[in-house]
């Protein structure tokens, strides 16, 4: 069959053409640089085949930051288009593609990878373990997520982007109304990435249950570990629903079945139900780990134990249960009976109760503390007032009768950005500033960090606050344009200006990463923040085996008490034993590539070719089954040498680096 190349590549648009050339040049440049500097081997052995949770975490974070750039450009393009009435920067089709990719990328390829990356890096360290329970599976999770993200991202240069919204409601998303292959990218790429996420969930449930160090009972775990644990449980409970829904979508779109179509007896609202049965818990999947990071960071910089630890744990469990019982609030206006709408209004509002408890506990953690305004702490502080605005508007939306007036308007868009940006992005930034020294052995610059902070927070509010009012004035979401008579112009313009400030804030972060990599002080000791949990008890950056001997824990904030009571064990030679670690493996990255290729073929509906490519998946599974590599041992001498080196300078810089 002859391929029509002008349809294969997206053509006819200068913007897209420029990015096609840009992408091609970047790729050639990267390959050339790797070859020139002879870095292929380093890249392959140190990163692409690694099973080390710390490196996998860093790769997740790198991917999340890059995807944030892509999703952010989408956001800016939308703001540019709607800044003035009847603008012609983007046409309807482009706007539709842009908000669809923005939504999907921001949630699945920005928020999720950044959080899972931080979880990967931090959780094994916090529980005093040498890795996650299944290191190879962890690598597979990453490569599947990466593969899904890449597949999704090429859609705008090859084949055409999905354009039915991040919710991809049927019937619109079906072949009857969206006959291009754009939405196949949605169905297939998210399936691949979702499989990776599901494996992460399983991995972390087992890790937290089985890998904790001596003495660390469940109720002595740091809060970030707790929330990641609960998040993993929600992942395991809800992602299979999405898997099924996407599979049915794929059948409808490529094989002509009728699960969700309007013809042949399909039920379009079944999609909406399945989507939100996953989609609402998904919101908590991204918010809960963020809550955990905040708890640890606030407690560190207020120099106090987390207030109300037990009620914190109870509230996250409550939130996770309630999160599965509220999905109908996304379609109150579907014509449900008054009884159904009342029920889901109440369950939704009930989430405010555990959330309120958490906010008060955070405030009381700081009370009587000594609050140090590091950049990480500023992000955590800014969370409180901004998230409260997201929360109270959430309660307003939960009141079904009132939602009849807010639904699908910019009021809703403002609300969920007030939840997702202060509730997920701020904590992620806090976490990056906080754990960066652990990852790389140097801190991000605090001065640039404050620029990042103030620009981003102010820009965020200027962008999204006007949208509440626009929504109440009848401005709807996902509309690429509006007429001048609506009177939306001025507020839309303010909002667009805000998004430029916000983008400048993000640019400051990127610059900070660059600046700090080149100029930051490398001589910072293992505990630059005077922190409280076990990850700070070991070297900075962390040695590949994490802990020379696994720590023994008797209290919450274990490391803090060790420091106070001078219980930090000196290095004694006879305590050190050989450490057994898993070897690198090529199988996960191979699987990512094969999944990507067969997914790509499936997107183009070349089903036979896709099936043949999928044989490669079975080949990978077979290789894995006959893989008898038992891992390797780190020898005593090596451990002793590494430990001596970092311990010598362990205490320097403790106090002088935070100012």
């Amino acid at each position, binding site marked *: 069959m002859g391929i029509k190349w002008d349809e294969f590549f997206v053509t006819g648009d200068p913007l897209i053409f420029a990015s096609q050339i840009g992408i091609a040049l970047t790729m050639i440049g990267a390959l050339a640089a790797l070859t020139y500097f002879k870095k292929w081997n380093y890249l392959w052995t140190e990163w692409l085949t690694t099973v080390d949770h710390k490196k996998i975490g860093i790769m997740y974070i790198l991917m999340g930051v890059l995807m944030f750039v892509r999703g952010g450009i989408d956001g800016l393009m939308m703001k540019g288009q709607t800044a003035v009435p009847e603008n012609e920067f983007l*046409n309807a089709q482009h706007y539709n593609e842009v908000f669809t990719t923005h939504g999907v990328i921001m949630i699945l390829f920005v928020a999720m990878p950044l959080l899972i990356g931080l979880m990967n890096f931090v959780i094994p360290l916090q529980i005093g373990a040498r890795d996650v329970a299944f290191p190879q599976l962890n690598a597979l999770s990453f490569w599947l997520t990466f593969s899904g993200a890449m597949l999704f991202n090429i859609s705008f240069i090859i084949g055409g982007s999905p354009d039915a919204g991040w919710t991809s409601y049927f019937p619109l998303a079906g072949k009857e109304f*969206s006959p291009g292959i754009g939405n196949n990218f949605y169905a297939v790429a998210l399936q691949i990435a979702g499989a990776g996420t599901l494996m992460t969930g399983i991995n972390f449930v087992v890790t937290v249950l089985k890998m904790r160090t001596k003495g660390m009972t469940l109720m002595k775990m740091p809060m970030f570990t707790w929330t990641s644990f609960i998040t993993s449980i929600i992942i395991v409970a809800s992602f299979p629903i999405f898997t099924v829904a996407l599979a049915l979508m794929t059948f409808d779109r490529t094989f002509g079945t009728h699960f969700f179509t309007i013809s042949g007896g399909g039920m*379009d609202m079944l999609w909406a139900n399945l989507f939100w049965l996953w989609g609402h818990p998904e919101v908590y999947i991204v918010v809960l780990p963020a809550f955990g990071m905040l708890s640890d960071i606030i407690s560190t910089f207020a120099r106090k134990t987390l207030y109300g630890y037990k*009620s914190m744990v109870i509230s996250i469990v409550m939130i996770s249960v309630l999160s599965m019982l509220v999905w109908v609030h996304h379609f109150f206006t579907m014509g449900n009976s008054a009884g159904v709408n009342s029920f889901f209004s109440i369950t939704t509002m009930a989430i405010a109760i555990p959330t309120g408890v958490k906010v008060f506990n955070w405030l009381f953690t700081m009370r009587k503390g000594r609050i140090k305004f590091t950049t990480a702490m500023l992000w955590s502080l800014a969370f409180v007032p901004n998230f409260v605005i997201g929360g109270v508007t959430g309660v*307003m939306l939960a009141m079904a*009768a009132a939602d009849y007036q807010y639904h699908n308007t910019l009021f809703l868009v403002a609300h969920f950005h007030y939840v997702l940006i202060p509730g997920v992005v701020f904590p992620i930034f806090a976490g990056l500033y906080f754990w960066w020294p652990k990852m790389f052995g140097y801190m991000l610059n605090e001065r640039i960090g*404050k620029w990042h902070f103030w620009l981003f927070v102010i820009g965020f509010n200027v962008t999204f606050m006007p949208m509440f009012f626009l929504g109440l004035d009848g401005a709807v979401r996902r509309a690429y344009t509006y007429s001048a008579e609506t009177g939306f112009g001025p507020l839309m313009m303010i909002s667009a200006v805000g998004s430029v400030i916000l983008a400048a804030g993000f640019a400051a972060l990127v610059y900070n990463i660059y600046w700090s990599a080149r100029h930051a002080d490398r001589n910072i000791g293992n505990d630059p923040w005077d922190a409280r949990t076990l990850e700070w008890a070991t070297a900075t950056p962390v040695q590949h085996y994490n802990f020379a001997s696994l720590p023994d824990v008797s209290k919450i904030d274990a490391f803090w008490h060790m420091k106070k009571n001078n219980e930090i064990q000196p290095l004694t030679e006879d305590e050190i034993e050989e450490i057994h670690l898993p070897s690198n493996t090529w199988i996960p990255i191979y699987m990512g590539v094969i999944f990507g290729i067969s997914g790509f073929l499936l997107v183009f509906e070349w089903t036979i070719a896709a099936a043949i490519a999928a044989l490669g998946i079975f080949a990978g599974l077979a290789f894995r089954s006959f893989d008898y590599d038992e891992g390797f041992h780190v020898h005593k001498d090596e451990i002793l040498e590494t430990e001596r080196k970092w311990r010598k300078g362990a205490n320097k810089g403790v106090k002088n680096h935070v100012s």
Partner: protein
Amino acid sequence: MKKSKLLLVSLTSIMAVLLLSGCENNMVVFNPQGPIARQILELINFSIALMLLVTIVVFGLFAFIVWKYRERKDNMSYEPPEEHGSTVLEIIWTVIPILIIVALTIPTVKTIYAIDEIPQGYEDKEPLVINVTSADWKWIFSYPEQGIETINYVNIPEDRPIDFRLTSAGTMQSFWIPALGGQKYSMAKAETQLYLVADNPGSYVGRNTNFNGQGYAGMEFEVLSQTQKEFDEWVKEVKETAPKMTLSEYEKMLEPSHFGRKTFSNTHLEWVDHSDPHSKNYTNPEMYDRGHGWPGKIFEDKDNYKNKDGNTVNTKHDNSEDMNHNESETDDSHGGEHSGH
């Protein structure tokens, strides 16, 4: 610290400015033109008041704590106490949100039930039934009792409950006239129902809020509320002067397209009621812009009116003589204005 205070001040002042401008401004949700919208607004105002209270309390506490316990040059030697919590306090801030939620639940549930019914004071007035059919990308209003049909505008008598029966010929839409009340979805092969009442004569904007493809942004209609007398006269005039729609014209109309107003002195309900689960499909996948990229497979649809297998719809289709309806089709009817590349 100066900076965190700055943050608070700037945040609250932005809020305050916007809120104040909001109050005196004429945002449509705050200017209800009918009893249903008014009921919803009461609920909204109540929730705003309560939520504002919550916000102020939390902001105040936050500002106080952050200010009071900030690190200063002179308290560097202060070591915060070990403090694990307080059962009493934790119970208090569990109970307070519960009370707030209860306070919100009661009026919410009341309003949910109330707006499902004909509003109080209008029960004795006979509702006017209007069937609303949404299609890509237009609104079709049928008046079954009057036997007339309007496209992209709807005239209603004031002070009389209107019983909107919503359905869709294809994608899902959401029917919203914010000045008169809340919205509801219109879905193919299903019927949803919405009561609305207008207090006074006037013209209001109605629109689709549920994204349904390239023509979505333009899917607006005008609602003209008239006195009963004006309304009756209008109906009479339409019956006398408006053309009759033919089936093929109707089928043409269901294709993805944008056009202005139209008026007919019959309704499409004589051929098809899209809310009937067994009704024919009027999908036209071939006519949608496939984005910029690779075209996918399109599947044959057995139930489509185009597959003429001797059923009622097609018989009528054959009988209709006016196959050449293009002349009456004044406005553009291609697949959206934006398919040109």
